């Protein structure tokens, strides 16, 4: 048996032994996922057990180096682990902006002290992070941000406002873009980290169309940030920001992978029924579902290819934009179809049968996929300019 085959067999056995059955079910709702943090709430003892077991192996972040709490796996081993988890239906043990976004940026741009301080806590789910990028007047045009950080010698004094900060009210720390030089748009931005419990930080939740309020307006009033918390060079934060965005887009594109191959037809069969030949008794809907599943299966192959190319250093640096664009548009189309398949069942907002309106709320949530992390229009701009090399106006 090759080393990789041995690894696969051992991994499978370990997962079978250690992943509690309850953690092999799809995540049912926002509260059902594990986000960790100082005030971590676990929906069940199994959820905590699963996190602790995976973290102990470094498998919350399988391809990070071991010294920072990772699993030290090679790309091929990490692919096997993902494949085996998918095969058993294992949940990811931890949802985390730290894992998806900040971690990769720190691995590349952080100094040794920052890596030692922050990465293991991310890997173990001890500190929950939020992302302070967008401002009321800086969304798609992110680099026009205004939140300022004034140099006070040993520390910065941060003032300003962020908006759309997901989970700002639940996060422990923030990675934040601040303006340290007003004379240059892109070269006057710095990337800093600070504790959300610092004096001068306040948050105000915003209610969404889904009825949830997972994100906030975030205000900074003379917040003191020690200089050791500057990541990368002063005024060069835009490089860190963009690198992190690439990872955010890669993560969001994963939404395109939601697996409805069974769920969608089953939902429609329940509401519509079968014709005499046993097929879904609504040929147009059947055709829409079938063609959607073709795209979904093709995108799954694309996601695999993208990961393989990324790990092998062969991916175009702007490819995450294409993945983000396609995956999120696909996910919106999927939920549009789930609503169509569900009929009036899928419109119920509060009933027990509808699990508290899980379908319409999820449908509404996906409409943000093509906005958050950079809109679809912005991704298309990037693909056009950086991959297709089309000229600027």
């Amino acid at each position, binding site marked *: 048996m090759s080393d990789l085959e041995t690894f696969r067999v051992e991994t499978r056995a370990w997962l079978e032994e250690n992943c509690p059955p309850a953690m092999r079910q799809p995540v049912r709702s926002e509260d059902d996922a594990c986000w960790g943090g100082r005030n971590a709430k676990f929906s069940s003892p199994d959820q905590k057990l699963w996190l602790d077991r995976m973290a102990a192996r470094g498998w919350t972040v399988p391809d990070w180096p071991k010294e920072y709490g990772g699993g030290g796996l090679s790309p091929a081993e990490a692919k096997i682990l993902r494949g085996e988890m998918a095969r058993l239906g294992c949940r990811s043990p931890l949802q985390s902006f730290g894992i998806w976004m900040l971690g990769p940026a720190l691995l590349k741009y952080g100094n040794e002290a920052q890596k030692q301080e922050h990465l293991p806590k991310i890997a173990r789910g001890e500190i929950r992070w939020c992302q302070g990028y967008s401002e009321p007047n800086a969304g798609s045009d992110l680099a026009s941000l205004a939140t300022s950080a004034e140099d006070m010698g040993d520390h910065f004094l941060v003032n300003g406002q962020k908006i759309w900060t997901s989970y700002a009210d639940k996060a422990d720390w923030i990675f934040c873009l601040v303006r340290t030089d007003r004379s240059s748009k892109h070269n006057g931005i710095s990337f800093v980290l600070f504790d959300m419990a610092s004096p001068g930080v306040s948050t105000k939740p915003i209610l969404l169309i889904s009825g949830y309020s997972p994100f906030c307006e975030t205000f900074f009033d003379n917040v003191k940030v020690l200089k050791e918390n500057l990541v990368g060079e002063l005024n060069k934060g835009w490089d860190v920001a963009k690198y992190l965005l690439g990872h955010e887009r890669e993560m969001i594109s994963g939404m395109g992978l939601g697996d409805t191959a069974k769920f969608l037809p089953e939902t*429609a069969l329940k509401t519509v029924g079968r014709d005499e030949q046993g*097929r879904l008794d609504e040929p147009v809907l*059947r*055709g829409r579902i079938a063609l959607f599943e*073709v795209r979904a299966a093709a995108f799954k192959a694309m996601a695999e*290819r993208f990961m393989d190319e990324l790990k092998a250093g062969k991916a175009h640096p702007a490819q995450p934009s294409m993945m983000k*664009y396609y995956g999120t548009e696909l996910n919106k189309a999927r939920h549009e179809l789930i609503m169509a398949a569900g009929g009036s069942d899928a419109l119920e907002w509060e009933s027990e049968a509808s699990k508290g309106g899980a379908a319409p709320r999820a449908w509404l949530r996906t409409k943000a996929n093509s906005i958050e992390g950079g809109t679809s229009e912005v991704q298309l701009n990037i693909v056009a300019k950086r991959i297709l090399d089309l*000229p600027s106006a």
Partner: protein
Amino acid sequence: MPLFLDDEQTMLRDSARAFVGETAPVSHMRSLRDAKDPNGYAPALWKQFAEMGFTGILIDEAHGGSGLGAVEAGVVLEEIGRNLTPSPFLATAVGAVEALNAGSAAQRERWFPAILAGDAVAALAIDERAKHRPASTALRAERSGNGFKLSGTKRFVTHGHVADLLVVAARTAGAAGEMDGITLFAVEKGAAGLQAKPERLADASLAAAIDFDGVRVEADAVIGEIDAGWAPLTRVLNGVRVGASAELLGVGAGAMDMTVGYLKERKQFGQTIGAFQALQHRAAHLYSEMEVARAAVLKAQQLLDAGDARAEEAVMVAKAMAGLATTLAVQEGVQMHGGIGMTDEYSIGFYMKRGRVLAEMFGDADYHADQLARRAGY
């Protein structure tokens, strides 16, 4: 196995790209068309394909081929597609070779040397109606002496009028619509009662309607088992469907490259039209569709080569997705070229025509989506 070409496959692609691009660019197809070439391909070019080793890609080494797989055949087909090269490669080097690989040693010995040498051309006689429905095969094969007598009509047989070998799906039992009772035959050129009527298609290629008027074949013409032809037919169809997907990708990629090139060149309103965001977004969307299709095709090729049980469904996804993406590529291609895109003199319209033919061949996106839905039970 990572989902990108390995070093050897990349080398093969580079040499196929250079070879096909130099010896058979779009102008080659145009000159055959203008001459109303009655063969539908250039035998001299087919010989060169053989010399390059392309015709033997799927033939194993023991028979003098290179024993490679669907990925490598696809690499060649993509370049054929990119250059709109008229070639019997798909039907012969993929379809017929896959059939013979499922056949007898005698059949392989009879045909492989000629295919390897570029001396033989083969055709697949499967469809009988305007839409691809292999299970509906109705052409009858009745036992007669120690052989069979074939009666019926096949359609959309590319290279059928020049083929030395016809791979024919016939019904030896059961009724149209059933998978059981189909038998695959190897029928040689010149058999009595065989008549091929070539028709020129929209893309200038030739496809024949073939009448079988009591065509007699010996028992050794059976490929695989009598009444159990669905298995070898599936093998053939998997090969040519994924192959047609690769050729489609080439057509789509060729159209997209032309279009993006044109966007960088053409000026209107005092700027290059590629600077208009309305066109940039459409070009970027097209790129995304093509990339996703490319991944689906490679996935199907790799699963086929690995003998994986999921290969057949992956092939259906690939054919459907490549059809959708390439259709978009050629339509956007013509549109973004404006008036010049509608002229015969410019090539983008040729891509549109070839794309349509390939999208239809061996089942279009609707057919494959429907098959996937049936398999999934809805």
